[in-house]
């Protein structure tokens, strides 16, 4: 009886591990859109960006035009580690090839007021694989946690 229980638990762990590996590393359909040139105007003012969320396709040649509507603002793009600063009336541009897929925060890089540390936007390059894989693994973790413990 004990041997059967142990064997069943071992089988269970192997199934969870295989499922986990499949979710973490399995192929996900990706965008097949042809790369294009994209010019995106971002207005920065009063601690937010407009638009605050931007979608591009992997391989796009992206130009972000930062326009400040009140004081000096910056735009630092996480992951790509690019930075631009715009004075009011003097837009700044950042051009890059969106060759890293995923979701990246961009944030103000010039102290612009009280809520400056929280002035944040998002650039999505293709699908956010990490998010969907993490949610899949979360579902697996929730079940595995309950299964794991033997009363």
């Amino acid at each position, binding site marked *: 009886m004990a041997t059967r229980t142990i064997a069943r638990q071992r089988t269970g762990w192997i199934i969870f591990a295989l499922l986990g590996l499949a979710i973490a590393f399995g192929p996900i359909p990706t965008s097949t859109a042809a790369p294009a040139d994209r010019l995106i105007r971002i207005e920065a003012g*009063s*601690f*937010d*960006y*407009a638009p*605050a*969320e931007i979608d591009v396709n992997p391989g796009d040649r992206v130009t972000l035009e930062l326009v400040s509507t009140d004081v000096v603002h910056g735009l*630092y793009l*996480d*992951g790509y*580690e690019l930075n631009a600063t715009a004075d009011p009336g003097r837009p700044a541009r950042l051009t890059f090839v969106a060759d890293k897929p*995923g*979701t990246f*925060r961009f*944030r103000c*890089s010039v*102290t612009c007021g*009280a*809520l*400056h*540390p*929280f*002035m*944040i*936007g*998002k650039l999505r390059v293709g699908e*956010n694989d*990490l*998010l969907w894989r*993490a*949610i899949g*693994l*979360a*579902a697996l*973790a*929730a*079940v*595995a*946690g*309950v*299964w*794991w*413990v*033997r*009363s």
Partner: protein
Amino acid sequence: MTLTSPRTRRFDLTRLPLVKPLLRSRWPQFLVTVIALSGFLFAIITGLAGTPVGSRNFGIVFVWIAWWALLMLIAVPLLGRGWCSICPIPVPGEWLQRGAVLKPNGRGWGLARRWPRRLRNIWLQNASFALVALFSAVVLTQPAATGIVLAAFLFIAVGASLIFERRAFCRYLCPVGGFIGLYSQIAPIEVRVKDISICAAHTEKTCYIGDAEGYGCPWQSFPGGLAKNTYCGACMECLRTCPHDNIAINLRPFGDDLIKPIGRRLDEAFKAFIMLGSAVAYSAVMLGTWGDLKSAAYAVGSGEWFAYAIAFLAFIFGVLPGAFLLAIVAGQRLSGSTAKTKSTFIHMAYALVPLGLAAWIAFSLSFVFTNLSYLWPALSDPLGRGWNLLGAAHAQWTPYLTQAMPMLQAIVLLGGLLWSSATARRIAGERLSARAAMRQSLPVAGFCLIVTAGLLGLLIG
């Protein structure tokens, strides 16, 4: 589980050379506390009189970035109430109350009243945390607000020490101490007695009353009755006053307190919801992309702020516990459990502790490492007078770990979810058969999954 059950898988650190003398001596703790008190007072001064630019102000940067990082990423997960043992906030009041800075030495000041019986719980700490959280967008960004809040903590702590006995502020009022206590149940370290029978035979109870070597437990806990870290301040007084060398500082498995079916209470259960809900709300307000939400949280007193405050309070005190209650009822239906719903709600809420801590760590990782580089100029020019003490006054802001951050946050959240689900099953198994326990805990795991998915969406989505 009883208090006298064998403490397995533990290692008493006081068996190591130097550990006990270092912990028994008051000097190391005193020196670290004085350094912390100096930093705390300096943070108040710079908050009130330093540069009004938050990201350049020593008070803001020192407290909300450096201290917060140490607290949430290191001290709480690994040392539990380790911070409380050197916290500067209650120290001036305690010195006055004792009339001494080090060993007991004559009479102190104060009325030494007992804390009101009806308030011997952490509801006031729940309320004080929620109150501070409502103003957090201002407190975290306005140096003067930080200075005022820190000074208020200090004055309230001194007042509590002069009116009530022992550390009433820490035990019943401190908004930080409340959540440290909750999450200290996870820490792999504990102060416990070695042999409860020695305590039972020791009629003087010097650990609680005090003697010439030290003070009676400032946290009003009897060490022989300690089963959880929640109300042990790790102050080491019992190590100093026990004449039988019966106090151990144990290394133990992570999360050991969570699976003890004793001492679970509604006020602590709500602390778990408040903390988990606040982590979600902070992630949305401070790390989200919604400018209007940030502005509403910041515009204290405006109609938008009142709407934000109502939504925040409704979420942490209503929506989250309400959804959890539905999960509990669903679990009872599935499992056929006849236990009282309220009791099951309270017990199962402790399963949220690992996920709550993971949520705070994931939030803090991003917040801290994005803003950590503000520390160098703030240390170089702490008063905003144009100094350059460390040669870093003009260091540029640089966010750290931006590439690795989403992956780190996902791993932390997944670990918290796995741990919470396993804890839910363990807690359910205390009173139910294996099959029923699984059915009772599955809806709770589902609740945790929804919260985790929401956090993933906010932090890495």
